[in-house]
Every structure is written in structure tokens, then in C-alpha cells.
């Protein structure tokens, strides 16, 4: 059975009708992981025994006639969600042996819905990066081209879904970390509105920007998963007390009259022509489906980038202070004194990019610089939000690129962090404004996938998913698979 070619809806139907068991399904994907992940390195930790046990339990529940939104459905977590009993590393040496004594809210919800965790995926260390090259557990390869990066920071989740090692996976997005790897790997990803998915148990990078979301094959699959993950959580003060609509039911809302805003500032010299062309094709397709294209202004993308690279490191510098070698995580050998314990534990435990951002953030918050950097960055952030608010006066959804190029070669930007930071120029404004954003595959350039970004006003995930779903009903880019991963594994 080619389970990896089925949609989540088909898998749910098959499980419900007992056409196949959760154990068969789980074993099949575990088998794909065992065969393919040596090359991809998309997983940090695989949990086959727990997965099969959970699958057996799911089969009992299915046999008893129980239904659950994801009962018996295998998935993977980005290794940033805390899971009691399975280590949570954040792809850092600092946490390489750390196991949380509690479950993240997202994990609790997925567990309750009957989903089966197959493992925890690779990522940029502490979610800092756009290429998945900043991992203490090694780089992840792009399934479409092993010479290319999968994007980041949720690169492991994106690669695993693109290679169909799992049907669906969680991710987190602080500045583009779901959308950009989804684009690079030719899959569908959604970063919900800030506060839509609980951050409790999701190890913090930049608290005011971090948001959990989904990487899957299609918008319809993502809708099923997001339905389970979303909702207010009393344990996260910043989670939104807003009811969660029925995303699956909303998938078929009509497209007629939909105004799609296209930011003219995003289609300029910074954007690869091949990417721009694919997006234009997709926009034509959406117009053919009844949408209207309107030009909008979204200025100050460079300002957003600068603001992000002050705010996120500032918050990170504080969030990562708890990794001090005292209570958990990496501790240096034979510390001479307290300062030596701090310095060596942190220098040894954190990778270069994490240290770079901690230093930038510490600097930005320092007396004498705070007003010039942090305060101005917050002002810029409010300005970016205002730009979006104005844009949404004349459109319902914004469409544009996810990243300036397709996936770049491994090592291409390693020596130049500033160029790497430019990767996030179209995604970062969305995080600063706290809005929902998606990436959907719209074709290829040079054999590597191109993604299109969809952005909506706060809490319009249902409409974004519907737009993506309509597009995917009429195109098959999302069904394309890298050749090496298409066949059944024996």
C-alpha cells in the first residue's frame, strides 16, 4: 500500500473503515524513515517503539468505534516541542540529553486527538537560521536536490514531509521558519496568527514572534492538523481567547470576489525572476478561479528586517539565559568558579549563530543602546503593522513570494550571515505584525520548488487555507514528489 501517496483525509478514512490498521500505517512510515533518513538527516530522534505501541492503542480505540481527528495518524514534531519521555534538543548541544518532564500543550492536544509521534525533526539550533545548517545534529538535505538546503529553521519537518517520511509535521515560525522551508521543499506550510497556537512547552526563541504551525502536503491536510493544535491555552498568557472556527468546513468557501493584494515593493530587483514568474502564473490561476488582483503597497521591508534582527535577538538573549549549566543542559567539566561555569557551559553548548544572536540581543538591550536599537525597532514594528492594516483595507488576502530565490546550495551563505538574513525579507514582516501566513508550492525553477506566500488579517487562517485549497484543487504542484522518494519502500 502506498500510504505515502495518500492525503490525510484518505488516511483517516482508511483507518476508520479498517481498510488498514494504524500499526500498518505507522510501520510503513517508520520503514520509510529507516530507509531514507540516513541521507536526509531530517530527524534528530526517532521513536519507533513508542510509535508502534501508540499505534496499537489507536487500533484498539478504532476497533472500539472511537473517532479522533487524528486517531492513528503518524506525524513528527519539530524538536522544539517538549515531550515527556522523549528528549527535546532544539538541535543544540546544550540540550542534547535533556528530556522535558512535561508535555507541550500542542503535544497534549495531538496526543488527545490520537496522533502518533514518529520522531522529532532536525532544525536550526533554537530555531535560529534559514537553512538548517545551524544544527548540532548536522545539516539536513533538501529531498529535491541533496546539494540544496531544505530551508530553516523547520528544515527537518519540511524535508521529512517532502520525502513523505511522515504525512505531516509540526513546525514553528519566528521570522519565516515554517513558510520558507515549506517553499524550498515544495510543500504546504501555515504559520497561524500570533496567539492562535499555544506556546506552552515550545522552547522560546523570540517570544513575541514565535508561533507554532503545520507543515503538510496540502492545505486540506494542514487544516485538519491545525484544527487540533489551535485554541486558547490558560498556560500561555499570550494565547488568544478567540474561538477556533471549523477550518475543514471553511475550505470550500467561495473564491468569487476575493481581492488578492500584490505588494508592488516585493516584485523588484531583489526577487529572482524565475520565482516572480511562477508566482505570477499562480496569481493568474487564482484570477481564473474568481479572485481579483489588486496592487498594494507594503513598504519598509528592509526596516522590518532590521527591526526583526534587533527584537528577536533581544528576546533570545534573555530567553536563553536559563541555559547556564546550573540546573539542566550542558555543563562544562571542572568549572573553576561560577563565571567559568557560565562562560564555558554556554560557549561549549551553543553554536556560533546562537552565540551571535545572543550577543546582538545583549548589545541591543544594553544601557545607552536600548533607545537607539530596541525602542526604535519596536516603533518600526508598529509601523509595519500599520502598513498591513492599510493594505487590508483594499484586499482580503496578500500574495507574494516567500523567499527571494529557490533553495540555495548547502554552504552558499554560511560565511555571510547578513545575506542569509535577507532570505527572510518577505516572511519577517508577517511575524512582526502577528498575522497568519502560508506557503504553497506553485512550480519549479531550476528543478527546485517555488513557494507562494499568502497572508491574511489576524485569525483568517480559514480563508488562507481555503484560497490555498482552491488553488490545489486545480493544480498538482503540491502532489509533486522528488523522484528518489516516490516509490514504495519494501
Amino acid at each position, binding site marked *: 500500500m502506498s500510504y505515502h501517496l495518500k492525503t490525510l483525509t484518505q488516511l483517516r478514512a482508511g483507518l476508520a473503515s479498517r481498510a488498514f490498521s494504524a500499526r500498518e500505517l505507522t510501520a510503513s512510515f517508520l520503514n520509510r524513515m529507516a530507509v531514507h533518513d540516513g541521507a536526509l538527516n531530517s530527524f534528530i530522534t526517532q521513536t519507533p517503539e513508542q510509535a508502534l505501541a501508540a499505534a496499537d492503542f489507536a487500533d484498539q480505540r478504532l476497533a472500539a468505534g472511537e473517532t479522533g481527528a487524528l486517531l492513528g495518524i503518524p506525524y513528527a514534531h519539530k524538536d522544539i*516541542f*517538549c515531550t515527556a519521555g522523549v528528549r*527535546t534538543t*532544539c538541535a543544540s548541544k546544550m*540540550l542534547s540529553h*535533556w528530556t*522535558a*518532564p*512535561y508535555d*507541550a500543550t500542542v503535544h497534549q492536544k495531538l496526543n488527545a486527538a490520537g496522533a502518533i509521534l514518529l520522531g522529532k525533526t532536525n532544525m536550526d539550533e533554537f530555531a535560529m537560521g534559514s537553512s538548517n545548517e545551524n544544527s548540532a545534529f548536522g545539516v539536513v538535505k533538501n529531498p529535491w536536490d541533496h546539494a540544496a538546503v531544505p530551508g530553516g529553521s523547520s528544515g527537518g519537518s519540511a524535508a521529512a514531509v517532502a520525502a513523505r517520511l511522515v504525512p505531516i509535521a509540526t513546525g514553528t515560525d519566528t521570522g519565516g521558519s515554517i513558510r520558507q522551508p515549506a517553499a524550498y521543499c515544495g510543500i504546504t506550510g501555515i504559520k497561524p496568527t500570533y496567539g492562535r497556537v499555544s*506556546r*506552552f*512547552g*515550545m*522552547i*522560546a526563541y*523570540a*517570544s*513575541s514572534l514565535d508561533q507554532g504551525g503545520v507543515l503538510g502536503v496540502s492545505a486540506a491536510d494542514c487544516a485538519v492538523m491545525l484544527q487540533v493544535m489551535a485554541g486558547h491555552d*490558560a*498556560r*500561555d*498568557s*499570550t494565547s488568544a481567547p478567540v474561538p477556533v472556527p471549523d477550518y475543514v468546513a471553511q475550505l470550500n468557501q467561495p473564491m468569487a470576489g476575493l481581492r488578492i493584494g500584490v505588494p508592488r515593493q516585493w516584485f523588484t530587483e531583489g526577487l529572482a525572476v524565475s520565482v516572480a514568474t511562477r508566482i505570477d502564473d499562480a496569481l493568474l490561476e487564482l484570477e481564473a478561479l474568481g479572485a481579483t488582483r489588486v496592487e498594494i503597497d507594503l513598504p519598509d521591508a528592509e526596516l522590518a528586517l532590521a527591526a526583526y534582527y534587533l527584537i528577536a535577538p*533581544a*528576546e533570545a*538573549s*534573555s530567553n*536563553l*539565559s*536559563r*541555559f*547556564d549549566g*546550573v*540546573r*539542566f543542559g550542558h555543563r562544562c567539566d571542572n568549572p573553576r568558579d*561560577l563565571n567559568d561555569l*557560565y562562560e564555558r557551559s554556554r560557549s561549549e553548548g551553543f553554536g556560533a549563530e546562537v552565540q551571535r544572536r545572543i550577543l546582538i540581543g*545583549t548589545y541591543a*538591550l*544594553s*544601557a545607552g543602546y*536600548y533607545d537607539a536599537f*530596541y525602542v526604535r525597532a519596536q516603533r518600526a514594528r508598529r509601523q509595519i503593522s500599520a502598513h498591513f492594516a492599510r493594505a487590508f483595507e483594499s484586499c482580503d488576502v496578500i500574495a507574494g513570494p516567500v523567499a527571494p530565490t529557490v533553495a540555495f546550495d548547502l554552504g552558499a551563505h554560511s560565511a555571510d550571515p547578513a545575506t542569509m538574513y535577507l532570505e527572510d525579507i518577505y516572511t519577517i514582516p508577517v511575524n512582526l505584525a502577528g498575522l497568519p501566513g502560508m506557503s504553497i508550492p506553485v512550480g519549479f525553477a531550476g528543478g527546485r520548488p517555488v513557494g507562494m506566500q499568502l497572508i491574511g488579517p489576524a485569525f483568517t487562517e480559514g480563508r488562507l487555507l481555503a484560497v490555498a485549497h482552491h488553488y490545489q484543487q486545480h493544480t498538482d504542484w503540491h502532489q509533486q514528489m522528488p523522484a528518489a522518494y516516490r516509490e514504495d519502500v519494501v
Partner: protein
Amino acid sequence: MSIQAGWEAVIGLEIHTQLATQSKIFSGAATAFGAEPNSQACAVDLGLPGVLPVLNAEAVRMAALFGLAVGAEVALESTFDRKNYFYPDLPKGYQISQLAQPIVVGGTVAIRVGEGGKAVEKTIHLTRAHLEEDAGKSLHEDFAGMTGIDLNRAGTPLIEIVSEPEMSSAAEAVAYARKIHAMVQYLGICDGNMQEGSFRVDANVSVRRCGDTALGTRTEVKNVNSFRFLERAIDYEINRQIELIEDGGRVQQQTRLYDPDNDETRMMRTKEAADDYRYFPDPDLLPVIIAPETLRAWQASLPELPDAKAARYQASYGLSNYDAMVLTSAKQTAAFFEQTLAAMGAAGDAKLIANWVTGALAAQLNKEGLEINQSPVSADLLAQLLLRVVDNTLSNKLAKEVFDALWAGEGTPDAIIDARGLKQITDTGAIEVMVAGILAEHPDKVAEYRRGKDKLFGFFVGLVMKAAKGKANPQQLNDVLKSSLGPCGEAGGEEGTQ
């Protein structure tokens, strides 16, 4: 202690008040003192990766009550900031506090220093009071060469109450601290236990020559866990600074620890290189919003506070200003007074109770180092005792004897009176018989008295009281003796010459 002539001191206090909530300020863990180390610290208190703070609404209410009680502005919107620094007992590497927008701004308390005619009243202004979380404790003594960390205290809610530098002596600082201490207990927002660290006072002290307008360099004195030590620590620090300057030295900005064993302050760390705490708004917490109607409800819920209670005691019970101040200086003292008064019913005598509570009871408590709620003589027992004074069963002297027996746990006042046969003799006839007997035994002294040696009256009182085993009603004895002896130095003299 008075300050050396030509100098004045400038003192401001920072008081960390642990709020008496059931659970911590940002987690559901319990706040009880004295539990096994690290047994009351949940994942949030430990600062584990992934956890998030959730504000305890009760801590907000308590902080607001304090603000209302001191007439401050209680902010309808306040915010939390992170204060970043590394220390092993600070699990997250930052303390959640309020810098930019504290919940309480301003406010005043009235203090009174000195007694009687020399008493001086002064109003101390508060700068602010803000909510924050307590850190854990580092235990340096218990592990040779290592430091133990107990995170039970981590996350305990605090309000840090900051005064303006408006106190000019240790006595004023103590009066202010005592007033704040009384208020937080009246409000029921802090247990006030200084030994356990529920109420911690840090003093910022500087000195300058009289007439100078610029403030001197200040030091911060910490580790003061009683009012007595606070007074001594400040006095020590004032004198140290004056001597230092007079010897040509310069006061350095320092944090100093008070050492009660040697009665001195010692340098803990210099603040020359100012710490940079990199404060910024905590992105994990929303602004604290208080609805105006909630604030009004809290205002209406305020209990009677010390100043109002003292005024009422003077107006309603005719107590002196001094008695009223002493009785209201602590919530439990006022409660004890009021319980005693209530228990005495219609025969209640506020002035009498005040004398006993501020006199014999206070002395005994002080002697044994007990708080009034630990007194072996309860309000009910004291009321029963004083009823026997009011109805003349006991003289004040006998009452003190019964009080001592009550303190020793010998039973109820009536049982002690019976057991010891302490009932006062109020039968005039019986007293007359005793007086007649004594006078008959000392005819020469009677004659001397009648010739004018009035001092002998006391001699006769003593003899009769001795014969009565101290139980004769003193007033009745006086009356009977006076009429039996007749006038002193008039007819007696004449009679003597006949």
C-alpha cells in the same frame, strides 16, 4: 542615637514584602515557608525550557490594596519587565519585575517619632510599589566548597515598596518601616514575618553636612531582619560614613550587609560599575489591566487601617493618643484589645484594658520574646481577670498576682482567686475589726499620729494590710483607718496634753 552635630543623614527604604497568596506569582506552586528544599518549585519556577508565566490575579489585588491603603495611584494598566542577570538562584536568568509602569505610584504614610511632648509627626512619601517575583535561596553554609540552591522561594510574589529619601534618622526609618509593616498586616497581604524573610527592609543611607543641598553618596544596607537591627544598622552606617568623611575619606557606592553579631555593616559589593540589567518588556505577559469598577470594589473592601483605628480609639474610648498609637501599631495588638473589650461586655473598661495591654502584658511578652497572638494569657482570660478588678474582687496588686498565675497556666482567673484565696476583703465590718485591733496594739503610735506625725498613716495601712494578707480593699481600708484615727495633729495634740 542622635547624629553628630553638623551632620544630617538621608535615608530611603526599599521594603520587599512577600504577598500572602496561596500560590506563586506566575505558577500554581505553593508558597508555604519551610518546606523541603526544591519541593515547592514546579517547572515554571525552575525555569525549564518551554514554560511560560501566568499572572496570579490575587497578587494583583493585594498590590492594589496596598496602593489604595497609602493613598497612591493604582495604575489601571501596568506592565512587567525582565531584569536580566545571571545568578544560580535566579532560574531563568532574569527576574520578572515592573520597571516602566509599576502598579502603585506615589502614596504617603504618616509616622510619629518620640513620645509625649517631644513627639514629632512626619509624612513620608512613597515613590512606587511594584510587583515582582522573589528569587530562590543560595545556601553557602551547608555544603563544603559548594553552594546549595533552594528554589522553593523562587516565584513567591513580592511588592517592592520604595520610599523617597525623606527620613533623617534611624528612628524615623524604623517608624516608617513599622508603619508599613502594620499596614500590610492590617490589609492581610503579608504575614510580616521578618525572621522568615516575608518582610525585608533594605536601607539606602547617605550623610551630608547640614546646609548642603546635594545628596551624599549612598550605601545600601541589607540583611536586616528585625526593627532593632534596622535601627542599629542605620546608626552604624551613619556614623561610619561621617567618620570616613571627617577622616578625609570618600563614601563609595556599595551594598553592605549588616552583621548583628558584631553590630556593624560590611561591604558586600561595590556598585561603582553599575550593573546593567538590560530591562525590557516581558513578551510572555500581557499588560495588567484593572477595571475601574474592580478598583472601586477593592477600595470599598479596605479594612480599618492603623491611623483611623487610633483616631476611633481616642474618640470612642477616651484613650490617650499614646495608648491609641501603641494599641493600633500592630493588627494583632488592636485585635487583642478589641477582643478583650468585647469579652468584658457591659463592664468593659477600655482605659483599664489599655493599661494592662500596654503595661503588664507588653512587658511580659517583651521579656519572653513572644508575639501577642502567642500570649498564654488570651484576650478572654484577660477580660475575666479585669472583670474581677472592675467588681472590686481584686486590687490591682492582686490582679497582677493572678495575671502571673494565668501566664504560668494555672487556670482561669476565678479558679486562681479561689485556689489562692486572693479574694479582696470588701466587708467594712471585717476591716473595722482589723483596724481596731492594730490601733489597740499600738497606742503610742496612735498618739504620735494624732499629735501630727501624719507619716504614720502609711505605717498603719501596712500593718492592717499585712494582717489582711494583702486582701483588704485599699480604698475601704483608707476610709476606715482615717475615721478610726481621727484628725491628724489637731484634737489629738490637745488630748495628749490633758
